[in-house]
């Protein structure tokens, strides 16, 4: 029982570390419109893992992670080279690098598997990841790499921020934009290779994008997005690891990704200003306000044709003046509640306050077309 708890604690801690680093470092990629670069990098890392094993015959986490990082980095350079030197657009370049590197990884893995030594067992966990196989030294490696990348992010915060928001200005100010670009991409590569063993090359890109996409909905400040994305990532990682451990046959990688997706869904819906619910409420309220103002102005227009501005007009007349006749009656009730109109028999007339308000609205809309009330 203690043994199990220890394993679960290790796995949950590892998943939290990878979620934290992927979320915070992925923020820059997402905000720069490079969400799919992470997908290409994580797939491109596979042949690096295989080659690192082939060359060193070691399965030490640091060795494999280094191989993965080198290959992922090389893949990024290929994407940059293809888009810079040919008419092939970036999305096609990403797709080519992604699948060709992955194909090479498959070739190398099958080649290794055909060798007589059976020491290759476990390399294919990099495909889908295997959180349960995480041990203490894996988590330490992940934590050290992630901490190093985060320190680099903090040290070059100002430069990276400038690169993100205004690369042209950064270049004019004499910042080494190209080196900064490569540096930021390197941090992304580090964030990705940290998670490969746990989540796998296929799903790792989701952990780069999802926390940042969720965090972006809650705040407009860069440091806020980075911190929140790290938090969301860690939370998704930990929750996913615990949920997958508590049910039979529930793989950790997909569970972590689904947790992160849930965070995104909640953020998209419920974020206070940008969220879809807030947006819908705002739209409804604006629509109501427009209707109220419209009916008030219709009454005012009718009143202008009479010597007495408080001359009442029937609902039927007002209905002919609007695109939504069925909304006139409830709108009039709402206006009466505010003391702007008053019923006179079957008809409605502007009150004194209603007349003033209607004139204010009309003047606001078209100053020269609104004579003062008589």
């Amino acid at each position, binding site marked *: 029982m203690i043994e199990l708890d220890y394993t679960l604690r290790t796995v949950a801690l590892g998943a939290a570390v990878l979620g934290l680093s992927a979320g915070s470092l992925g923020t820059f990629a997402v905000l720069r419109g490079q969400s799919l670069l992470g997908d290409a990098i994580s797939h491109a890392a596979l042949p690096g893992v295989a080659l690192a094993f082939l060359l060193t015959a070691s399965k030490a986490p640091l060795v494999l992670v280094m191989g993965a990082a080198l290959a992922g980095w090389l893949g990024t350079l290929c994407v940059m080279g293809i888009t810079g030197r040919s008419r092939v657009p970036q999305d096609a370049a990403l797709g080519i690098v992604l699948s*060709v590197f992955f194909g090479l990884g498959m070739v190398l893995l099958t080649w290794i598997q055909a060798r007589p030594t059976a020491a290759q067992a476990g390399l294919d966990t990099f495909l889908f990841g295997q959180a349960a196989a995480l041990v203490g030294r894996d988590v330490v490696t992940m934590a050290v790499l992630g901490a190093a990348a985060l320190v680099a992010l903090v040290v070059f915060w100002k430069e990276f921020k400038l690169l993100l928001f205004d690369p042209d200005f950064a270049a004019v100010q004499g910042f080494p934009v190209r080196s900064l670009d490569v540096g930021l991409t390197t941090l992304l590569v580090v964030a990705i290779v940290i998670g490969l063993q746990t989540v796998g090359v296929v799903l790792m890109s989701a952990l780069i994008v999802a926390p940042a996409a969720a965090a972006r909905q809650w705040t407009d400040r860069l440091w806020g997005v980075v911190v929140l994305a790290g938090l969301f990532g860690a939370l998704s990682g930990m929750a996913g690891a615990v949920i997958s451990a508590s049910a039979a046959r529930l793989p950790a990688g997909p569970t972590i*990704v689904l947790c992160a997706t849930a965070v995104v869904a909640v953020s998209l819906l419920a974020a206070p200003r940008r969220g879809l619910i807030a947006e819908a409420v705002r739209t409804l309220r604006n629509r109501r306000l427009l209707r109220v103002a419209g009916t008030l102005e219709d009454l005012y227009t009718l009143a202008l044709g009479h010597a007495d501005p408080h001359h009442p007009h029937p609902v039927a007349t007002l209905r002919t003046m609007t695109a939504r006749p069925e909304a006139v009656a409830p709108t009039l009730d709402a206006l009466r509640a505010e003391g702007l109109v008053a019923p006179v028999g079957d008809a409605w007339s502007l009150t004194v306050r209603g007349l003033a308000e209607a004139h204010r609205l009309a003047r606001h809309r078209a100053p020269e077309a609104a004579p003062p009330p008589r």
Partner: protein
Amino acid sequence: MTPQVEILLICSVTAAACALVGAFLVLRRTALLSDAISHAILPGIVLAFFYTENLASPLLLGAAAVTGVVTVAIIEALGQTRLVKQDAAIALVFPALFSVGVVLIARYASGVHLDTDSVLLGDPAFAWIERLEVAGRDLGPQALWLMGAVLAVVVAFVGGFYKELKLSTFDPALAAALGLAPAAVHYALMTLVSVVAVGAFDVVGSILVVGLMIAPPAAAWLLTDRLPVLLGLSVLLGVASAVLGYGLARLGDVSIAGAMAVMAGLLFAACFAFAPDRGLVAQARRRARQRVAFAERMLLVHLLHHEHTPEADRECRVGHLQEHLHWAPALAGRAVRAAERSGAVRRLGADRLALTEAGRAAAQQAMVG
């Protein structure tokens, strides 16, 4: 037919179908929707498989097509909220759907002939085992018939809606104005991509299918500017990747699908480097030629400037060009040779240069632009 020939045929037909739909994805700059679709159709396939328990059932094609179209619709709806960018929308949607598929398989399908490795990786080496038998007669591998049918559908679609595809790819606004319904064409194409992806996932898996859809058309695009030629070349390069990849796989006893993707990548790299007009080598040669041509004109202007002046004898020497114009000796030599060849410059003695009549005219022309 031997299994080897059958496998080769299956791979070639798959590659051809992928390349043909992929060409339009690459040209429309929606290449990565193939990545999204090929992953996101997994839950559709799994659910249909639970229902039919047969991986070659046509119902799987239908389910995959529906899932693929739904995926694209979700991605576009998410992008239209403006809350996330379009590329982030892709990166959010397909891993989530793929995860749902993986979880479904792990929870409810362990032990049956459908595991995540085969979906992700595919393996043409076993594609010939399931046979299509009608009335006791062996008509060949099921996969070959399936992919053949998929290829036929793709060819029929591209042939039948060629005009619509072409116009909506290169000028969607005009296509809409002419009533060619670019949105309908878009979704029809996405349906087709889904059908090809599900047909191919058994053979090459959902990741390498992306390579077969994108790499051959991207390579073909570097070779030609004409759509019919591009389509033909894409199919040709796709089939070549399949054949070469199969050869490589047999040679090294490695994953056939992986080797096909590697070959597709190598063919792309070859086009990237050596394409006649747009390759790296052609670009470098063009730049070198332009440099010499520019240097030649500079030389003529230089000679004209110092002609009939007291220092002409000093300025108009080959050796002096390096000093005065800061040219490397090699460039100076090439420029002088080029000018001599075109008859703009003649030598007075070993080192001294002078303009000919034609050279004087060319120099004056160069200065007025």
